């Protein structure tokens, strides 16, 4: 009986979104009298930071400070349409819709500024600090609040924009079966180091080293948060979590957190994370979706590391102590 160490690797190619009936997500933008740009969405922030990254994307396209953007989301009765926050699709889909809507709103914003500054709309630029100004003469500028007031009360103009992401459903080629089910794809490689106790069957993950290729990062700290959280969730899927009972009848199905075992703080391995940025062709500012894959990529790496440690051929998960001990027995009876 011993504690055996092993190393395993996984590599993952992960799609962004899907292609069911266009996979649409809409965004509506309007500017309030105080110069705030409200972006209405039905896409949902689950804690991953969606509101932050979408406000960043909106601010970038509009050319206004991040603080001037307000994301109004979460009500599917009143909001525009979103297919949903899943399939790593929302930053990509809603981001594209926001860019489209922001371009339209920006156009009207620059027209009002041009009227106020007695210049041509094509000579207008934003400074990203809350002003619209005349190119080449930075002193001829107007603040967003004054611009909003002028639009509402002097010109009777609505600064607003409509955007949609839509991926046409091209169907399946009957000859070849070829189809285009997703948008851009992200990639990952994870290396896991584990220690397996051959007496108890328990597995400890010592280290997870991850490399993610996810296109352009909108917010690196939030990216790191997704990868760390996903790594530990993946560890849970690899070793503990299952909605199926460990024994073959439904009454033993987990009824709560007493039976559905999640990883806890002491289970957290050493984590090393690298991010590569190869901008995508179709994502907003080169984004790729990657949230979901962070919980998947660690699983095969951990299972492979266990097999490497034991010389076994486990191909299911979670790799519970029973599975480890059964695999060791099978290996012994073979030899």
């Amino acid at each position, binding site marked *: 009986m011993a504690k055996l160490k092993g190393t395993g690797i996984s590599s993952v190619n992960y799609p962004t979104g899907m292609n069911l009936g266009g996979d649409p997500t809409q965004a509506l933008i309007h500017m309030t009298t105080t110069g705030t740009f409200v972006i209405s969405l039905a896409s949902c922030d689950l804690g991953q930071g969606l509101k932050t990254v979408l406000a960043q994307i909106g601010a970038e396209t509009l050319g206004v400070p991040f603080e001037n953007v307000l994301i109004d989301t979460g009500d599917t009765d009143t909001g525009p349409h979103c297919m949903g926050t899943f399939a790593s699709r929302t930053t990509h889909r809603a981001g594209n819709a926001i860019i489209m809507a922001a371009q339209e709103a920006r156009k009207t914003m620059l027209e009002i500024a041009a009227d106020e500054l007695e210049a041509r709309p094509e000579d207008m630029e934003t400074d990203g600090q809350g002003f619209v100004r005349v190119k080449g003469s930075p002193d001829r500028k107007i603040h967003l609040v004054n611009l909003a007031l002028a639009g509402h009360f002097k010109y009777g103009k609505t600064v607003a924009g409509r955007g949609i992401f839509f991926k046409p459903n091209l169907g399946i080629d009957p000859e070849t079966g070829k189809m285009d089910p997703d948008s851009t794809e992200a990639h990952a490689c994870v290396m896991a180091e584990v220690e397996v106790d051959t007496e108890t069957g328990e597995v400890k993950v010592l280290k997870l080293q991850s490399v993610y290729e996810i296109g352009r990062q909108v917010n690196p700290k939030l990216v790191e*948060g997704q990868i*760390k*959280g996903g790594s530990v969730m993946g560890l849970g899927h690899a070793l503990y979590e299952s909605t199926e009972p460990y024994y073959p009848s439904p009454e033993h199905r987990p009824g709560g957190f007493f039976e559905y075992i999640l990883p*806890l*703080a*002491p289970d957290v391995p050493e984590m090393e994370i690298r991010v590569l940025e190869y901008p995508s062709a179709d994502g907003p500012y080169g984004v790729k979706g990657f949230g979901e894959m962070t919980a998947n990529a660690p699983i095969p790496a951990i299972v492979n590391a266990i097999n490497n440690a034991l010389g076994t051929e486990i191909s299911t998960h979670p790799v519970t102590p029973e599975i480890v001990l059964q695999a060791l027995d099978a290996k012994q009876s073979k030899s």
Partner: protein
Amino acid sequence: MASKIVTFTLNGRETEVMVKPLTTLAKALREKLGFTATKCGCYEGNCGSCTVIVNGEPVLSCILPVEEVEGQNVLTLEGITPAEGLHPLQQAFHENFAIQCGFCSPGMLMVSKALLDKNPHPTQAEVAEAISGNLCRCTGYDPIIAAVLQVAAGSNGNQGGSHE
């Protein structure tokens, strides 16, 4: 069964609440007293999100009958949150991205506070152990541990808005 009045100190104030027997502290706090910072993830004593501090010890308020805190000292997240700004632990959670969906955060903050009050300079393993009764689905725990260690390194972890 007849309702009864339970009296205890809540965040430094004498508090009375009229409850049916076996009402949990979590229910009394949230539904009777309007102290909704305390969150309930499971109502069965296994996720830690409902943790409050009773006489310096972290306890699960979802399985504690409120009669049990008669005459005791109860501290909730409202009690450590200053009128202006944030408690050092809240600040550190914010800075370390230790909050994603936020559902575990009230419980995580209260166990961390109880830890630092007793052990102002814990090791990483001691922090992990202290929060090991609290589930977090989002962050992978690592940022939470980092936040607690940051407070331990920068202060005694027992300042700002505490009412004990």
